[in-house]
C-alpha cells in the first residue's frame, strides 16, 4: 500500500512538471536550436567591451556615491528607528507596548525593500530620497527585531546592580547594559549595511536613484557597453564595502 502511494506521488510530481512546462511555454530545446547560440554569444560579447570613457566614468562615480550614501544613511536611520522600537519590543515598558512594537516591527519587515521603494517613489518622488526611505523602513524592521533579541539576551545583573545603588534607569542602561550590547548592535548594523549596499544598487530599477537607475536606463536603451561598466562598478562597490565592514568588525566587535 505504502509503495503504491509513493509511486502515485512520483507520478503526480512528474505530471506537474510537464504541465508547468506546457503552461508557462518554456521551450528549452529552442534555446539551443537554430542560430540562437550565436545570437547569445554576440549579446554577451557586447558586454565584454565596457565603456571606459571619462564622461561615463564620472557619471558612474556620482551614481556609486549616491548608492553608497543611500545605503549608509538608510542603515543609520534604520538603526536609530530600530533601537527606539527594540526597547519597547524587548518588554522594557510593559507588555501592551511590547505587543504593539512587535507588530510595527513585523509590518515594517514583512514589506520588501522593492515594494517600499515603489511606494516611496510615489510618495516622495523619483530619486535617492525614495531609495533611502525605503531602505530605512525595511531595515528598521529587521534591525529592531535583532536589537530586541540582543537586548533580551544581555545579562541583567550589571544594570540591576546600578539600580540597587540608587542609579536611574537610563544610567543603568548606559553603564550596565550598553557595554555588553553595543558590539552586537554594531555587528548587526554592519551586516545589514552590506545587505543594503546590494539592495541599493537594485532599488534604482523602480526609479529610486543610484547605480541601479543608470543600469536600468542603459539596458532599456540597449547600451550594453555602458551597462557593463555599471555592473563592474556595482561589483567594485560591494567588494569595497565588504572589506570596510570586515575591517570595522575586527577593530570594534572582536576586541
Amino acid at each position, binding site marked *: 500500500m505504502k509503495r503504491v502511494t509513493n509511486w502515485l506521488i512520483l507520478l503526480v510530481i512528474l505530471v506537474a512538471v510537464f504541465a508547468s512546462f506546457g503552461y508557462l511555454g518554456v521551450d528549452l530545446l529552442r534555446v539551443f536550436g537554430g542560430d540562437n547560440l550565436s545570437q547569445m554569444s554576440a549579446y554577451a560579447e557586447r558586454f565584454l567591451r565596457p565603456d571606459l570613457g571619462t564622461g561615463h566614468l564620472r557619471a558612474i562615480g556620482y551614481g556609486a556615491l549616491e548608492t553608497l550614501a543611500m545605503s549608509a544613511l538608510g542603515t543609520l536611520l534604520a538603526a536609530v528607528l530600530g533601537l527606539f522600537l527594540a526597547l519597547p519590543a524587548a518588554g522594557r515598558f510593559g507588555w501592551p507596548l511590547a505587543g504593539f512594537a512587535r507588530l510595527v516591527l513585523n509590518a515594517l519587515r514583512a514589506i520588501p525593500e522593492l515594494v517600499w521603494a515603489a511606494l516611496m517613489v510615489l510618495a516622495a518622488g523619483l530619486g535617492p530620497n525614495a531609495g533611502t526611505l525605503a531602505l530605512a523602513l525595511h531595515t528598521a524592521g529587521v534591525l529592531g527585531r535583532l536589537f530586541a533579541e540582543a537586548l533580551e*539576551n544581555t545579562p541583567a545583573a550589571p544594570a540591576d546592580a546600578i539600580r*540597587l*545603588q*540608587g*542609579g536611574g534607569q537610563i544610567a543603568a542602561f548606559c553603564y*550596565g547594559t550598553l557595554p555588553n550590547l553595543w558590539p*552586537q548592535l554594531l555587528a548587526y548594523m554592519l*551586516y545589514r549595511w*552590506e545587505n543594503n549596499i546590494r539592495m541599493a544598487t537594485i532599488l534604482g530599477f523602480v526609479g529610486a536613484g543610484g547605480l541601479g537607475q543608470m543600469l536600468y536606463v542603459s539596458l532599456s536603451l540597449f547600451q550594453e557597453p555602458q551597462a557593463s561598466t555599471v555592473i563592474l562598478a556595482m561589483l567594485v562597490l560591494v567588494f569595497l564595502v565588504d572589506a570596510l565592514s570586515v575591517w570595522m568588525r575586527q577593530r570594534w566587535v572582536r576586541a
Partner: protein
Amino acid sequence: MILGLHRASLRHGKAVQALRNVDLEIEAGERVALIGPSGAGKSSLLNVLSTAIKPTEGELRVLGEQPWNMGNRSRQRLRSRIGLVHQAPPIPGRQRVVTAVSAGRLAEWGLARGLLNLLHPLDAEGARKALAELDLADKLFAQCGQLSGGQLQRVGIARVLYQSPELLLADEPVSAMDPVLADHTLGVLCRNARERNVTLVASLHNVELALAHFPRVIGLRDGQVMFDCAAADVAPERLRALYANEHLVPAPAAEADAMAVQIPRC
C-alpha cells in the same frame, strides 16, 4: 539602630525557604561577619538588607527608614546610601576599570554628569584613589574583561568604596582571592569602615578571617540565626554545630559574564 530585621522570612517560590523568622539589630559603626554553611541564607540575608529583595514576611528598617513603605523615588535615594559588594562583580567585561569604579557615584551625580563621564572620565583621580587602597591603581584604564577573578572582585569593592555609603554590605567579598590577598583586602575594608564610621556587614565562608577582622559574628544555618555574639565568644563546639556535615570548600572563582557576539554572514 541603623539596621533592623523583625521576624523576617524570605521564600523563593513555594519550596525554598531562604530565611525563617530572622531578628537582627545592628548599631551604627558596628562591623559584623555572617558565617555559615553553603545555602544557609547568607546571600539572601544580605539581599534583604540591601533592599534588593523584599522579605516575604516581617519588617526591615535601614538607616532609620522602612524601604518597603516608601515610594520608588525615595527608595532609590535611600539605596544610594547603601553599598553592596557582590560576590560575582556585576561589571560588563567591555567596560574600563575607571568607568566601572566611577559608576559608584551615579546616583549622586545625576544623569547628565553620568553620561558625560562615559565619554570622558570626570574623576579619574578619585577612582584611582579608591583602587590604590586595593593595590590596583595600575589597572585604572584596563578592560574589566581582562582582569582575573580576584582583581575584578577588588574593582567591585573599589566601586563601593568610591560610592562611600553609610552602610556597607559585602557578599563573600574575597572569595576569589588567595589567602594573603583576602586577609589584606578584608583589612582595607574594615579600616575604611572604622575611619569613616561606616557600618559593615560581610558574609564570609572563611571562619578564621571572620574571627580575625570582625568584633561581632553571626552564625546562620537553614535560614535561621544559630548564634550572634562577640568574636571572642565563638567557641569551637559552636562552629562544629554550625558546620555539621559540611566541609569548608572555597567558592569557585567569580567569572565575568561575557556575552558571545553573533555575527551573521550572508
